[in-house]
């Protein structure tokens, strides 16, 4: 079993865990963290799965993952701003559970 496969499997596991958390939790911060978990899983998959069997590092993937991390940080920041504002307005850390569809 080479390291890349381990990376990939870990990534898939993280994604699954993150996805579960994203669906399961109501607390907005927890959901944001779960999203970050999915993101990190995805990056692991990118690094691991894409480079398997090549023996050399793939610069494209490294560049992509870097970009991805930047984007994810930005997303987290935006989420935090919104959540903080929501907390100031409503004093709540979760969205009202309306069944509006």
């Amino acid at each position, binding site marked *: 079993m080479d390291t890349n496969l381990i990376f990939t499997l870990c990534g898939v596991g993280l994604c699954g865990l993150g996805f579960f958390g994203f669906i399961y939790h109501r607390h907005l911060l927890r959901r944001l963290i779960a999203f970050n978990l999915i993101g990190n*899983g995805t990056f692991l998959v990118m690094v691991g*799965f894409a480079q398997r069997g090549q023996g050399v590092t793939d610069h*494209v993937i490294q560049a992509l993952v870097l*970009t*991805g991390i930047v*984007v994810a940080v930005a*997303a987290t920041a935006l989420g935090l701003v*919104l959540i903080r*504002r929501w907390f100031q307005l409503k004093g709540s850390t979760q*969205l009202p559970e309306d069944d509006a569809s």
Partner: protein
Amino acid sequence: MNMILSPIPWLLVIPLAGATLTMLLPYHWRSAASVVGIFTQLMASVILWYQVTHYGPQFYAMADWQAPLGISLRADGLATLFVLMSSLVASACAFYAHHYLSLHKRANFWPLLWFLWASLNGIWLAADTFNLYVGLELLTFAAVGLVAFASDERSLEASIRYLYAALLGSMAYLLGVALLYGAQGTLAMDSLAETWQWGPTTQVAVTLILGGLLLKTAVFPLHTWLPPAHGGALTPVSALLSALVIKASFYILLRFWIEFQIYQFLPSLSQLLGALGAGAILWGGWMALRQTHLKMVVAYSTVAQIGYMTLMFPLLVAENSEASMLAYQGGILMLLAHAFAKAGMFLAAGNLIFCTGKPDLVSLAGMSRYRPLNIFAFGLAGVSLMGLPPSGGFNAKWMLLQSSFMSGQWWWIVVLLLGSLLSAAYIFRVFAYTYQETDALDTYKRPRLSLELIALSLSGISILLGFASLWPLEMISLPGPVMEALP
């Protein structure tokens, strides 16, 4: 090509520069700077259109950095049409916002609008799947920011829901792209199309990408985030979101589906997409009929209209090239007509709400007497959305009908016709309210004429499309990657 000569880089650089500049400039200068930017955008779009129609598809590598690390861009007929569409709609919404928002709001509106515009152009012109991801994310941030802009509880809640749905969607897309890179070894659209290999990894990747994009396009039953976000935002923002933003993820889906010939290899998935579209048409129409607030009716109408666009996927059939061509053209025409009609309708609805000061339908009584021009604008957009002639919406529906006949898929005909009746029902329901006369004294505010005229001209374009459909159809049928991949 030289940067000065090609309009493609300008379509990205100007909006990004605009975003930065309008953040730094004093409040009073931001509108002026934006107006200059809007005109250069319109000019760049027209130049691009000229080049593409006369010299064929255009390619451009940003700062001469070639793929795979650089940002490479391409403009075929389809992309050019979308650039033109977004330039027109975004300019109209920008001018509307300039008159509609207060100085303070307006000043903060511009940077977000420019980010939105940059990411839209980035998506239309992207030549590789990762740039599409970056575009999608940037678009999400700008759009979420714009939704939260109304700065009340409802819109904040809507924007958080929207953000979470969109983030999940883009992550699914990114994971799909990662798997695709692992399986195919490239990210560029054209080389992916050339060396496409089906395998289990690719199938998982396609499923992830499909799921992510469906969530971001708000295709039924993943649409729940859309109505509060589109219905709760400020009027010019609602128009931008419904007319352009959801089209971005749809556009990516369309490119994947056709360029990688997914429609040929997974016809059952296409049928599933069609079924979701049918669900969207019926459910969206039904929900629009039950709303009590004007903008929510329009927002649910968007859910239904996305369904119409999704109906083009099952009609792309490998065995029947004529039916596929009709479906492709009809679907794009539907999208185009919807962009103008829905922007016009949201702006007209915003004017009506401004007049009455209340967002609900009952308060519209007497409006068709007080603001006939505005009702007319709403009505013209409605005609196109209902798919009644003469309008772009009708021509599109006609092409989809013909495509269904040709490929023998009569069940979509039933859906198309039922959907028209449903949309007629919810639009005329709004009309019935505006024609009502009550004894209450009129206490209406009068919107500026320019606001009404902007709404009217957008709706008018959706009607004119009924007479000038050939022009966009010829444009999207110019030689390019999409046309090569169609049967």
